[in-house]
């Protein structure tokens, strides 16, 4: 295996020594480019009290290419589809090498706080969100309760 670029080592070190509140990211022991990530649902959002599992992978070209991030926990959100793929500008066209793992994960957390149904990835969810926001938020809460509650996370870990 090619040696890990210094940039990745530094970022990993900092993620451990100076973690972002509400976010954890640990590299997999077999592959240091693969991270297991958890993000806490932001306060005052339908995802409050939930802990979401994600995976993050740094491609060979990182940091010239954006990291690949995907939700593993089921989530009801207009910009996240059934497979957990995320529609977020910094992961696509607006990626810049000056961004980091931590900034990307913060952006994902911010996306949970402010869903954008006008630029949807999961069309059905987005439609619900526009038609009946209250109902959609309720569903999101229920899903969070069902799939991302803290207790469950601990027991599965």
């Amino acid at each position, binding site marked *: 295996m090619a040696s890990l*670029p*210094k940039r990745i*080592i530094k970022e990993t070190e900092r993620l451990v020594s100076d973690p972002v509140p509400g976010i954890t990211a640990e590299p997999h022991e077999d592959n240091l480019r693969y991270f297991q990530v958890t993000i806490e649902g932001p306060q005052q959002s339908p995802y409050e009290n939930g802990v979401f599992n994600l995976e993050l992978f740094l491609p060979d*070209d990182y940091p*010239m290419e954006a990291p690949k991030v995907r939700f593993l926990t089921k989530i009801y959100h207009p910009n996240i589809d059934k497979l957990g793929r995320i529609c977020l500008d910094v992961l696509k066209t607006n990626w810049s*090498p*000056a961004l980091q793992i931590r900034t990307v994960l913060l952006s994902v957390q911010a996306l949970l706080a402010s869903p954008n149904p006008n630029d949807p990835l999961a069309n059905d969810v987005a439609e619900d969100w526009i038609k009946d926001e209250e109902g959609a938020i309720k569903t999101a809460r229920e899903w969070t309760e069902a799939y991302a509650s803290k207790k469950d996370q601990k027991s599965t870990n």
Partner: protein
Amino acid sequence: MTSVQSEDNSSLIYGDDFDDDDESIDLYESQTTATCSMGDTACHKLNSLVSQESEFDFDEDQFSGNESDDELLVDPMTLSKKALDDDKGGSSLKYECLTTQDILDRMLKRVHHLQPVFSIPSEDILVLMQRYDWNEERLLEEWTEKMDELLVEAGINTSNPGDKLNITMRGIKHRSDFNCFICCEVRSTETFSLECGHEYCIECYRRYISDRLNEGNVITCMDCALALKNEDIDAIMGTPSSARLMDSSIKSFIQKHNRNYKWCPYADCKCIIHLNDTSYLQEYTRLHCSRFVTCKFSHIFCFGCGYGMHAPADCNVTMAWVKKARKESENLNWVLSHTKECPKCSVNIEKNGGCNHMVCSSCKYEFCWICSGEWGPHGRSFFQCTMYKNDDEKQKASVENSKKALKRYTFYYRVFNEHEVSAKLDWKLGQTVGQKVKAMQEKMGVSWIEGQFLAESLQILNEGRTVLKWSFAVAFYSDASHNLTKIFVDNQMLLSNAVEQLSELLQIKNPETTMKRKSEFYNKAGYVRNRTRALIECGRDLLRKCICKPVD
């Protein structure tokens, strides 16, 4: 829209009715290099073989001469009449053939032109133009509205110019023990930064830029919205790499204006046909004609559907046919087009010349490549092999019917394919024709112009074959019982016959014989040309009278 009248604009007719709303730049400025009007030699860099200057004004005759006479008098649509008449005049057609470089040159000219208006450096205007997809009007509008905001948005000025402390020198510096925040390496290296002070090592910058050169968007600083100019890019890369960025930017411009700009579909051809006024294309469609355009390498294609020259079929027939061919015969394709067994001794034969008169190399049996029948009767009377013989008429079962339909289709597809292959081989023949002309010049002191009849014949042969080829698509979708269809089939036979004769003539290897038979070339080529026109007209009749209807 500012319309700048140019000095050397003689062959252009634009500028009078220029009102295309999504057009950004007045592209009709002087364009000496690539104005493509039929018969204008300046733009034809092509090898002298297939000269556009041929007397055979294919495009013009076909689409204006005949059309405007009968059809448009019945139904005078002023616009299309005008357009078609323009063709008829022959001096200039309403389209031009460009390359990305030509378009870029025009854009740069505009930038140069706008410089006094903006009074900022040209490089900055270039960034603005890219950002606005080369839409000069929209740019000017927003410029007058909110100049300062625009400059920040486009990344030309920093967002907080008051913050003088942050402003550093733009450009490449040399640093020892530099800690780059992108790669996190600490070493002595060259670095680059814009005025924003976001400084990174040159290697990171190179990787960053080379990933983005093909995207066609303005490249910004890695950490903020400040834009890199072309001179920065070239300085960082150490090579004139910005040319690639400009090229991709123009390509995305063409993509966005694909109603007026079309890439030549031929392999490796980099030409772009620009048609300013597309409004009369509808009229072409209504008349079951197509707007064929020719790029400067003599590639003829249809501006409407993007396929190659497909008369007498219209775009609908063409697309239906191509779709069907894709669906049903992918596997048939290769076998049919590449080999055939000798009808007598079953040796596998690959065709290596354009002529359909085959002589089996093992048993010397002479046969026709298309119908596998004996060659004997072909030369003298009509080509019976162009007619589909409907001999299963009394079969009733639906299974039989579908079988018949497939058989019928296979027949038409096969002939269509034969002519395509022949056309390709004819094209190869063209290469040897060039050598032949050269040989004649050396051996017999024939002047270049005298040798041109060969190239012209070849051109006519090609066009005849193409028309013949597509006529089978028309025939396939036509009602076989109708009288006009029968006339059409007769016309096919006549053209087929004529084409084969001309093809055979072109196979002559000996230049002296060729020269001696020069008049024969003229006769045969003239005949092919007439038959081609007749077939096109006849096919169009079928379409207009709805005898030929494309169905899936």
